[in-house]
């Protein structure tokens, strides 16, 4: 993956969007296996939804892709995982570059204990993006993209922790977007959001299609069906996660191969 300083984000094309390939990837925390032997192809520039019951390893799988698993002591990832053809699990790779290219939004909103503005400015400065005005533009744009601009524009200097749960989550999404990553990992981005904000975020994710490879964990099967090009269903057996089935969203929802998938899709409410 090459740094792409030049060229606007919105002008990026599918060709720039790296594909992700997982080959027999397993994750264990200490002795406990979180999931086992997941082999999955995520097409560049497409939206891939990960669905499955709680605790089956979706978050853990996302964390492998940007190597956030490094942060857990005793967490071991095995197998092969490539992003844009380059191995992610190899030792000594440039983690910062990887993580700049692969944005992630985690399940629990985690804004820094800084002001709203500083939360967004920090990653830009860090990666040496643009000058003052460009940064300002990018920040405003990102806040608009998640529908937060109007709500916070008067209190950009206040602590991000005085925001409501939903506002915090949208701030975190904006913080990831501001870097214009090539791959975006979203861990239940809408779960803390009301339908309006959820709609705003969802629309934005759809707009990013073809500009960005997107992997989204969602418990909202309807949402997966609405926006995902491909869907992967994780399942769990005796406390270990595994990949049950994956393929084009339409096929998964209309003609699931696995009876368990079928039952899961059936159970779909709402």
């Amino acid at each position, binding site marked *: 993956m090459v740094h792409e300083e030049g060229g606007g984000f919105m002008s990026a094309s599918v060709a720039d969007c790296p594909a992700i390939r997982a080959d027999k990837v397993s994750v264990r925390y200490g002795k406990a296996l979180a999931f086992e032997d997941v082999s999955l192809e995520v097409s560049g520039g497409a939206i891939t939804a990960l669905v499955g019951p709680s605790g089956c390893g979706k978050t853990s799988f996302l964390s492998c892709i940007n190597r956030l698993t490094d942060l857990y002591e005793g967490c071991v990832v095995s197998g092969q995982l490539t992003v844009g053809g380059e191995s*992610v699990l190899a030792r000594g*790779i*440039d983690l910062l*570059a990887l993580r700049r290219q692969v944005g992630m939004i985690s399940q629990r909103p985690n804004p820094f204990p800084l002001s709203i503005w500083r939360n967004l400015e920090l990653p830009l400065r860090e990666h040496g993006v643009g000058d003052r005005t460009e940064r300002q533009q990018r920040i405003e744009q990102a806040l608009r993209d998640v529908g937060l601009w109007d709500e916070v524009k008067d209190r950009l200097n206040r602590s991000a922790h005085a925001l409501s749960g939903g506002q915090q989550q949208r701030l975190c999404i904006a913080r990831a977007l501001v870097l214009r990553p090539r791959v975006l990992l979203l861990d239940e981005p809408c779960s803390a959001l009301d339908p309006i904000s959820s709609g705003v975020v969802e629309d934005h994710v759809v707009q990013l299609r073809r500009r960005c490879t997107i992997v989204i964990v969602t418990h909202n099967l309807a949402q997966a069906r609405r926006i995902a090009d491909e869907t992967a269903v994780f399942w769990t057996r005796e406390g270990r996660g595994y990949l049950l089935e994956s393929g084009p969203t339409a096929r998964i929802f209309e003609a699931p191969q696995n009876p368990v998938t079928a039952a899961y899709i059936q159970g779909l409410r709402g």
Partner: protein
Amino acid sequence: MRERVPRGADRLAMVGFWAAALLVATLFAWLVGDVLQHGFAHLSLDFLTANPEDAGREGGIAPVIVSTLIIVAICMTVTVPLGLGTALLLAEFLPASSGQGRFVRRSLDVLAGVPSVVFGLFGNALFCQRLGLGFSLLSGGLTLACMVLPYFTRTAEEGLRAVPQDYRTAAAALGLSRTGTIAHVLIPSAMPGLVAGFILAVTRSLAETAALIFTSGYVARMPESLFESGRTLSVHIYDLAMNVSGGDGMAYSSALVLMVLLIVLNRSAMWVSRRWSMKRVVAS
């Protein structure tokens, strides 16, 4: 995704932090190397089990070790409950901005800066004379407790303050009593801070000289009760190094013993705290 050598500031910072650590480690090695070099000569089982002879130039330090342990034990038995109570008051019961809280905190910070000689003279006036305890292990332990109180209290307070608000919310939502919340949720969560405070307090009390000369005293006899005078390791080291010609070698050996004692005490404190908070974690 080529191999990334940290650039610019990041790299500088990394070099800086390693350098800082190396610097401290080198100075430490130098200092301790000196102590080891001079100290090993006299170290033997006898040294640990015998009484000092000829003003400490000969013999061992058994009574000194015992007195030291007793005084530190007294000091910590007073400091931990008192300090924990004060820390809880500061962190949980008084609003951060309250005048009372500020007053107490300020008192503690001032206390941390009172020279140990003054503690010694004060302890002598209060415990030895006013309260009639005389030169005794008890006077020494209590004086030390006054001295290390701010170290334990302030560190424990910070530990408590750093417990995520979420836990307090959850505990309140469940209708847990204040005591229950403190005992079962806050204290286990604040354990790193408490242990840090404990370590600071123990090390400080082990290393103290001036405050003890005037309170627990200079007598190097094996103590038989808390009301007897007893000499601690650091007083012994001070006497040998500053007051007894030819006492240097024994002073270094005693310093060596003191350091080993320190590690043992701190490690066991950590071990106990881990056991204790594990017990909270492991059910019923």
